[in-house]
């Protein structure tokens, strides 16, 4: 699951990695590969009842832009979500916890995080985060393998469809 806004520079990392995965690899039937944008608590239909979840997103952490950070479920949920004023603040933690009460929360979670450089309004990754894409893709592939559902490289990979980065004149 890729999260983030493609119109906000490095926040588009999640969708960018998803397009890269879809263009280059084939996945087991039991695996869904989704670009979900920034749905807040409305994530729950997608997570409900899933066994495992891999999230690709930018993360707030100390370090240099482009550095990769991995978090498991326990570490992600160690700090409770903050009080929300707007009900549509990012809702991954809240969704996981709400589903837990329901007994439908994925037991296994890995966040593949990258520290962003810029998140202004421009539909394009910065160079620092663009160069982190292969590492994030590898982390997802390694996790799928570990979960027993490895992806297979396409015999004829296509170019990732990063439609939001095409310039207006194209």
């Amino acid at each position, binding site marked *: 699951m890729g*999260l*983030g*806004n*493609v*119109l*906000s520079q490095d*926040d588009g990392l*999640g969708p960018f990695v998803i397009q890269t995965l879809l263009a280059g690899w084939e996945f087991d039937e039991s695996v869904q590969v989704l670009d*979900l*944008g*920034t*749905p*807040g*608590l*409305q994530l*729950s*239909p997608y997570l*409900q009842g899933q066994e495992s979840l891999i999230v690709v*997103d*930018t*993360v*707030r*952490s100390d370090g240099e832009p482009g550095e990769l*950070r991995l*978090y498991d479920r326990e*570490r992600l*949920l*160690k*700090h*409770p*979500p*903050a*009080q*929300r*004023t*707007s*009900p*549509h*603040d*990012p809702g*991954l933690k*809240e969704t996981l*916890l*709400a589903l*837990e*009460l*329901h*007994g*439908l929360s994925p037991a296994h979670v890995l*966040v593949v*995080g990258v520290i*962003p450089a810029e*998140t202004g*309004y*421009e*539909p394009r990754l910065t160079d620092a985060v663009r160069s982190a894409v292969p590492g994030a893709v590898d982390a997802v592939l390694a996790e799928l393998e570990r979960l027993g559902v490895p992806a297979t490289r396409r015999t004829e990979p296509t170019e990732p469809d990063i*439609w*939001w980065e095409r310039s*207006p*004149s194209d």
Partner: protein
Amino acid sequence: MARIVVDPITRIEGHLRIDVEVDGGTVRNSWASGQMWRGIETILEGRDPRDAWLFTQRFCGVCTTVHAITSVRTIENALNLEIPMNAQYIRNIILCAHAMHDHIVHFYHLSALDWVDIVSALSADPRRAAQIAQSLSDWPGNSVQVMQQTQARVQGIVDSGQLGIFANGYWGHPAMKLPPEVNLLAVAHYLQALDYQKKANQIVAILGSKTPNIQNLAVGGVANAINLDNEATLNMNKLYAIKDLLDEVSRFVREVYVPDVIAVGSMYPDWLGYGAGVTNYLSVPDLPLNAAGTEFDFPGGTIMNGDVGTYRPISSFNDEYFRDNVQEGIAHSWYDGDWQKHPWEESTDPMYTDFQDNGKYSWVKSPRFANEPMQVGPLAQVLVGYASGHELTRKYVDAAVSQASSLAGVQLGLQHLHSTLGRHLARAVRTAVLAELAYKHWGLLVNNIGSGDTDIFNPPEFPSGEQRGFGFHEAPRGALSHWVVIDSGKIKNYQAVVPSTWNAGPRDAQGRQGPYEASLMGNPVADPELPLEVLRTVHSFDPCLACAIHTLDPEGKEIAKVKAL
């Protein structure tokens, strides 16, 4: 005088900030501030208008569908392009399903815990809770067994020492008034609501190919090829899958959501007296019934000063009353200047100062209609519907008001809807009306296909020179409009005037507050450290300002969220 700042500085960019001054337990002054630059429209300049919806769909992660549909309507309006009826109906069913999903999520998962004390549910008698629930409706999920299971789940979470999602709740707050049994039945329904919002979302997914970002739109129609015998297209199987899902969601809305709002609301009668704020209302017509967009199933219009007698209709996709009266001002917004302009004439030149109580203090502009601040959202839509004589709206409003009156033991009327709880009640009423209209448009689609019409698309043509267009949609949070200037087939200017801008905008040049701000005036605040009452009123609008920037915060690097100064 105490100053309270509610500012969830949890992400890279700030979002909605609310400041209130409290004296003697009452809010005396208030400010609403959008903490994030909303200059997103500039990304569209120079692009092909046929692609605009793909980008606008990414403005917000919750309101994807609504920005997509408003965008194609806007370009079609600029080109004077009608779309086939199948396309109209398919869009309408998507709009209904999306809105039902959104409203169910809002009540149960985003705002119910402002009113429901989950910890108190532990001391409830499950039999009594089931009795109360069964007196409200015939819903099968109201059994004693369900109440017992729910209580056991809550007990399990509390025993684990990790309240999880509920860790930041206001449990035991003096403003929490529900008896334990009502808290328990509300928690049971909170859990059940997860399933039904998912079903509503599935309807959007069947028609839109994907959610949350649908793929089936085009300027000129939709991309859902129709062939009733082909597995790959929109066929009878898919149409009946949609109907089955609609059956299930409608029943949940009728037998759970609407009765819950009435029951919870009738136990907080005070909150029918707080939170009115701006009582000028704006709603746009929606669910078009013909290709030209001159007949609709949801009426639109304006009401001024809370008086339904002032109703004035907005009645077509080309409506001049709407087109000529929308302006946005920046007197108190972080942009260069202090103008108030029509969206086609606007520019976006950021000029940040700090937060100045009497100067500029928000990234949100101040929309005005005929120079008046307006409240938008389900309450506006329901009042406009009521004023226009819309039968379905009247049926559900009258039933809800009468049931709430008997539960609360006081005679309530339309005037009580101008309130914090009135917004919740109106949203529930609107959802019930949406459920009925979704059926209707499903039937219209099936009949139209049955008559042999399989058209889905009229190709757009872009003449040279300049065209101007506007499009609107009565979205879950209210009147959404997009405005475009096209020059020789390229976008020259694009502006989105979104519902949360109407509601969250700051003061205007005359110092008149926006709806959030005005609605907080006079609200009680029992404990300035725990301003639950402020959240109740703000949440009742279903604010959505903050979706554009995301960035997870796995390490809990949050700054204090409530400051009482």
